[in-house]
């Protein structure tokens, strides 16, 4: 069983509107690098030049912020669900 990734809101456009994406990877960085192979430009929109997650984006593993874990090195297990959200301001 692989890990499920979902990109919500404006980030969904980065994965061509795909709702749930299955990825086999040992940690979140590796998963994003694999996704980059299918979705060109993904990493540059998510990560800064220094390789950290942009501060207007948050990544959650099973609803928990990965900043409370090992950030992009956070280990993934089969069946995990990773959710990515971005700040939005519309009202």
């Amino acid at each position, binding site marked *: 069983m692989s890990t499920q990734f979902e990109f*919500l*809101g404006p980030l969904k456009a980065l994965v061509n509107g795909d709702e749930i994406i299955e990825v086999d990877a040992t940690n979140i960085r590796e998963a994003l690098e694999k996704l980059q192979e299918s979705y060109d430009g993904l990493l540059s929109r998510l990560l800064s030049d220094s390789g950290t997650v942009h501060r*207007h984006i948050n990544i*959650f593993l099973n609803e928990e912020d990965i900043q409370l874990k090992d950030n992009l090195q956070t280990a993934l297990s089969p069946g995990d669900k990773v959710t990515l*959200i971005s*700040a939005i*301001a*519309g*009202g």
Partner: protein
Amino acid sequence: MSNSPFNVDKPIEWYNRYARHITLDGVGEEGQLALEASSVLLIGAGGLGSPAALYLTAAGVGRLGLADFDTVSLNNLQRQILHGTSDIGRLKVDSAVDTLHEINPDVNLRTYTEKVNSDNIWKMMEDYDVIVDGSDNFPTRYLVNDVCVQAGKPLVFGAVLQFFGQVTTFTQSDECGCYRCLFPVAPDPENAPTCVEAGIFGVTTGIIGSLQAAQALTLLLNRNGFEVGKLLENRLQIYDGSESSFREVKLYRNPDCLVCGSKDFDFRKVEYVEQCSVNQVLIPKNAVAG
């Protein structure tokens, strides 16, 4: 009121208007009175502000402040349900007052037509129990968050874009994070499409704005001893209309947050800059002392 079936000295119309609240376990007459003694400041009388204001007014919040400098445009009417076609060109707060007064004339409505900024926001919000953010740009959102943290004022946050919405409540308790714990800075302009640029499915504002009203009412009742529900404290609720789904993620208080994590933070030292149709929020390095 001898021989009266009622417990508080209110006219029968009051009992009738709020009958469905009064019947609710946990609310009752005293809970309704607590709402009547409460106040909410709504930042923005647009897409989110419309449903929030309608429900807060209908619910009988005692005092409702409406802050919006803008006028009603035809392209607002697809979602900003406080306003009608004949209101085009009027100040939104004036249009809102007419609509809200018709729904519940007992609510004390106050309007603020100046643009919310660092100079006026403290005085504007200090007399209110809860702030509901229905603004439409990052500088205002960060300003409202930062001031609420500094003032210890509960903030009900909501935001929308396209088919997507977010809502949470920053209670300002010692355990609760703030908006900057979640998103320390705003996106760069190229990563921050506005509703003007990206569009908004109108009813999304209705869903999120209604949730904001529910949070505000729950908070007001809870804090007055009427435990009617659990707040979205340290929980971000996410609505995705493209899938008709709700999700939730856990938030936390970041001890390194520049705002709620710093005793020396002062919003007056921060630049909240708006550029053209996109927005940036700057935190100068010297904004946070120590």
